[in-house]
Structure formats: structure tokens, C-alpha cells
């Protein structure tokens, strides 16, 4: 049943790995070319030159740049992310703690967005040109144009400040009065994640809708849709079972672009809601010149994107049996 040849897959994996290596090198160069360094915050005016040299020595800044680069590349291959100067903790620990929090936010938004978006896109594409299509489409474009931090503020204003229904920051209740059991923790997290997810999906679903709508519209002219109609199937069945399925293919490839959008969105959202994830730490670490943390976050997000690209290629072939990768090579 596999439509992807092993050779093709192996080639793709090697290329993905090389892509990651180049991204890492680019990161190293870019981060090092930012003015300033994290040790400026550690140096106080009373320090002697030797003390400063010692701090530089501890953080490996006295080594030549090429040496730092090679160390960096080799360390990352072995999963050694180094130590964060600002958090004074191993970067790997920080990442392990923060990664799941961001993935929860990502996963939920991704799922909701990629259910609502294609559904609405299917509907609009099918009835393209109708009054409903026009009004819903223009409204969704308006949503898409909102700055994500601004819409979060509006949500916080309504649901937290005015109504007091949902918390506006953090992942847990800060001083809980309840017992810490698996159930209460789950409930507490859900309670806190509600507003971030709402703000993120409020804008995010439009992306997949925008891909689904035109492809759905194209599919309506296809012969098999005509045939389905001729068979006397109901409008609903034709739309969902015959047309929508085929229109989903470009949406699957669009998922990578959607992911990039989501990363951007979640960085802002995490900052607005004080969500202690990767998006928050990536901004602060870049601004504080905390290179080890910044490198690791960039790297992990890059890994996420590269893996997603691989996965979408595989999903692609299952959605569309006509596509065969790696044959005839």
C-alpha cells in the first residue's frame, strides 16, 4: 500500500537533515552578529579585568569564533544544548519544560483551525458568488486582518475584565485553593488555555479557508461531481463526499504555511497571555542576547517545520493516489 518508495523517503530525510544543518549555521552567524552579548548584564562596574575575563572564560567566549561554531554543531548532534546564562540552568531542561506547553497550544489551535477552516471553505467554495459567500468571506478577511495581540486584548477585556469568566494570564492558578490532582490540574489548564486558543483560532482558521475555497470552487466543475449529481445524490452528499475530499489536497500542503503562521501567532499570543512556552522565551532570549536559549528554540521550531514538511508529503500521497513520489527516478 505504500506509495512512497523507501529510496525517496531516505533521500528526503537526508535533505531535511542537511537543511537543518544549514539553518543551524545561519542561526549561529545571525545571532553572533547581533550587537551586545549576554555577559554585559553580568559585569558590574566594580569588576576587575581578570574577573571579566573569567566570566568570558566560563561561558566559552574567549575561544575563537570558528571553534565556538564547531563546538556548537557537534554539541547539537549529541543533544547537548548547553547552559543558559540568564536562567542559569541547562537549556535542555528549559526546553523540555516549555516545549509541551507550546505544543498543547499549537496542537489545539491547529486542530480547531483545520476543522473549521476547510468546513467553511467547503461551504463558501460550493456556493461561490452567493450572498452568503460574499458576506462570510469578507467578514473572515476582516478577521484575518486583525493584529493578534489586539484581538487578544479585546477578548481579555470582554471575558476577563468585564465578565470575569476566564483568566487572562499564566498556565495555572497562581495560588490555588484546590488539591493538586490530575483532574484539577487538567481543569485548571483548560480554564487558562481557553482565551489564548480562542484568540489564536479566531484569526487562524481563515488561512486554511482561503486555500479550501478556490480549490472547492474548481472541483465543482469536474466530471465526477456532475456524475454524482446525475446519480441523484443529494447536494450535501455530493458536496461533502465527492467534492470536498478532492479539494482537501492543497489544504494538506498548505498546512506547512499554516504552521508558520501559527508559530508567529503563538509567539505574540504567548507574550500577551504570559503563557510560559517557547514563543515567550524566544523573544526574551533574543532581546537578552541569551544565545544558547535562542539557538535551541529556533532549532526546535525549525525541526518542527522540517518534520511537518516531510509529513505533509506523505499525507499528500495518501489523499491523492495519483501522486507518486520517487518512481521513475
Amino acid at each position, binding site marked *: 500500500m505504500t506509495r512512497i518508495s523507501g529510496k525517496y523517503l531516505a533521500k528526503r530525510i537526508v535533505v531535511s537533515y542537511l537543511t537543518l544543518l544549514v539553518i543551524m549555521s545561519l542561526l549561529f552567524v*545571525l545571532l553572533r552578529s*547581533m550587537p551586545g552579548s549576554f555577559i554585559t548584564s553580568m559585569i558590574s562596574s566594580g569588576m576587575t579585568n581578570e574577573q571579566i575575563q573569567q566570566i568570558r572564560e566560563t561561558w566559552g567566549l574567549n575561544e575563537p569564533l570558528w571553534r565556538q561554531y564547531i563546538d556548537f554543531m557537534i554539541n547539537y548532534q549529541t543533544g547537548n544544548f548547553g547552559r543558559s546564562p540568564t536562567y542559569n540552568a541547562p537549556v535542555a531542561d528549559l526546553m523540555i519544560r516549555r516545549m509541551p506547553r507550546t505544543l498543547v497550544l499549537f496542537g489545539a489551535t491547529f486542530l480547531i483551525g483545520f476543522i473549521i477552516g476547510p468546513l467553511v471553505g467547503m461551504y463558501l467554495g460550493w456556493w461561490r458568488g452567493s450572498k452568503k459567500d460574499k458576506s462570510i468571506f*469578507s467578514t473572515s*478577511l476582516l478577521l*484575518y486582518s486583525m*493584529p493578534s495581540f489586539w484581538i487578544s486584548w*479585546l477578548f*481579555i477585556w470582554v471575558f476577563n475584565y468585564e465578565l470575569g469568566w476566564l483568566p487572562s494570564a499564566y498556565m495555572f492558578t497562581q495560588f490555588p485553593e484546590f488539591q493538586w490532582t490530575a483532574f484539577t490540574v487538567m481543569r485548571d489548564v483548560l480554564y487558562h488555555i481557553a482565551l489564548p486558543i480562542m484568540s489564536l483560532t479566531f484569526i487562524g482558521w481563515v488561512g486554511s479557508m482561503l486555500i479550501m475555497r478556490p480549490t472547492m470552487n474548481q472541483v465543482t466543475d469536474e466530471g465526477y461531481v456532475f456524475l454524482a449529481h446525475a446519480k441523484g445524490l443529494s447536494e450535501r452528499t455530493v458536496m461533502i463526499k465527492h467534492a470536498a475530499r478532492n479539494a482537501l489536497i492543497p489544504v494538506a500542503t498548505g498546512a506547512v504555511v499554516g504552521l*508558520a503562521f501559527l508559530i508567529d501567532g503563538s509567539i505574540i499570543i504567548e507574550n500577551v497571555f504570559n503563557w510560559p512556552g517557547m514563543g515567550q522565551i524566544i523573544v526574551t532570549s533574543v532581546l537578552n542576547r541569551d544565545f544558547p536559549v535562542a539557538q535551541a528554540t529556533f532549532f526546535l*521550531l525549525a525541526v518542527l517545520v522540517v518534520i511537518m514538511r516531510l509529513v505533509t508529503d506523505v499525507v499528500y500521497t495518501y489523499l491523492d493516489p495519483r501522486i507518486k513520489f520517487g518512481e521513475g527516478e
Partner: protein
Amino acid sequence: MATGQGDTESDGESYTRRWEPRLERLKRGWSRYSEHNIGILGLVILGIFSLWAVVPGVFAPHSTDWVAYLGEPPIESRLTAEQVRSLPHPPAFGDPFFAPLGTNANGNGILSLVIYSASNAMYIGLAAGLLSSLVGVPLGLISGFYGDTWIDEAIQRFVDIMYGLPFLPFLIVLVAIRGITTTNIIIGIAVTSWLNNCITIRGETLSLKERSYVESAKVAGASDTRIIFRHIMPNVLPISFVFLAQDAAGAVITQASLAYLGLADFTANSWGIMLENIKSQGYIFDAWWWLLPPGIALMLMAASFYFIGFSMEDVTNPQR
């Protein structure tokens, strides 16, 4: 697009012959475009913003240096403690001063600030959109034209690499390296936003280069450069306008997001900076007249670009 060609005939008749079909096409395009209410709406909104950008003084009730109670500069006196306490002041019409959308915490009129900021958003949107098209379209053309060669492979791998870097943090790094100015923000946005452009144009070019007119141009001995830019490019330009509009909208929003993170040229007036100010001065939930107008302006500006872009898409889409 193609006026500078060395035609020997240059009398009036050939001029009409050359331009009539183009005008005709333009008219047909316009009639398809104007079927979309949102396309017209987008143009109207953008037109108003352009007027704000070009002659803000006509629309704004006062200058950006105007201060509540004290009026236009030069200002000699200072605000009394009671007056300071009343800031940010809700909308007032003549009593104690005239400010239709109220003031911010420094006493500047919100409406004037919103109007004077239009030029900044317009500039960033158009410049970043144009710049990313200028990078993305040629690269997409070249990549598509030399499809399945090492040139294509190299460009596509480069696109892959750029996709792997998260846009916003990458932008922060770029801006941090080059310094926070409006120009650098524009360059940074363009560097991160040409990718979609490039991929779509490449796909288009891949199918266009199999057309017979490209074949005949090849047989006639046209160089690759000539085929790419003279024969293929005019056919992908409409799509690239769609992307230009979308990139422009994205740039406007991205600039606001950067401002939210504290990365903006704070000497300029911009909607993003107005929103950053309301956050840093802590009036998000207390001053709706300060919170809503910049956000709505941002939304409408980006939306107008999207409206125009998606209506254009329909003009360029031959299917229907």
C-alpha cells in the same frame, strides 16, 4: 509593460493598434473586478487612507503635537495636576476642548494621531510588498524556467531553509542586527515574506514554459533572459499583484506585532506604536477610545489590501 520595443512604425495608427487591445483588456478586467463589492470597498478604503497619508492636515482636527487644554505648540504653560489626572480624556466635543476620539495619556488627540499615522502604515505596506515581489517573482521565474536543474534545486532548498526559520523571531534578529528603523523593518519583512511568492510563481512558470509561444520564441532564437522576462513574466504579473497585495497586508500587521514587542522606530507615528503605548502605560481596559481606533485602522488597512488582492485573483483566474 512592453512599450520600449524597437518598432520601426511609430505613427498614430500603429499607436492605436498597439494600445487598443490593451485598453480593451483593461476594461474587461475592470468590469470583472468591479463585480466584487469587496474589491470596490477595498479601493475606497485604500483611497481614504491614501488621502490621509498625503494630506493629513486637511482631515486631522489638530497636529500631532497638540496637547489637550493647552492647544497647538508653541506651548508655554503646563498642565495643572487636575488636568493631568483627567488624561487620557474620553471623547470631547468643545468642552473643555475638541477631540472627537479623546486623548492619550500625554494629551495628544487620538484622531489626529490615527490620521497622521496612515502614511507610515501605507509606506511600510507598499514598500515591503513591492520589495518582496521584487525578490520573489524573479526567483520564482528563474526557478520555474530552469525546473529540475541545479538552479531550481538550489533556489528551492534555499526556500526550504527560509521556511525553517520562524518568521517573527528571525525578523527580530534581523532588526536587532541592523538597528530599529522603519527602513530596516521593511527590509526585514521583505526578506521573510517573499517565499510564498516565489513558490507560486515557480509553479505557474513550470506550466507556462510548456506553452507553444515559449517554444516558438525559443526556435526564433530568443535568449533565456528574453523568454523569461519578455514572454513569461507578463503572464505571471497579475498573480504577483495578488501576492503584492497580500504581502502588503501582512507587512502592516507584522509591523504592528513588532511594535507590540517593543521593536519600532518610536520617533515615527504609527498605529502599532499607539497600541504599544497603551500597553506600556497600562490603559488597555480603561480607554476604549484609545484602544479601538488604531486597531480598527490597522484592520481596515490590511483588509483593504486583502480585498483588492482577492478581487484581483478573480480577474486573473481564467476559470469560471
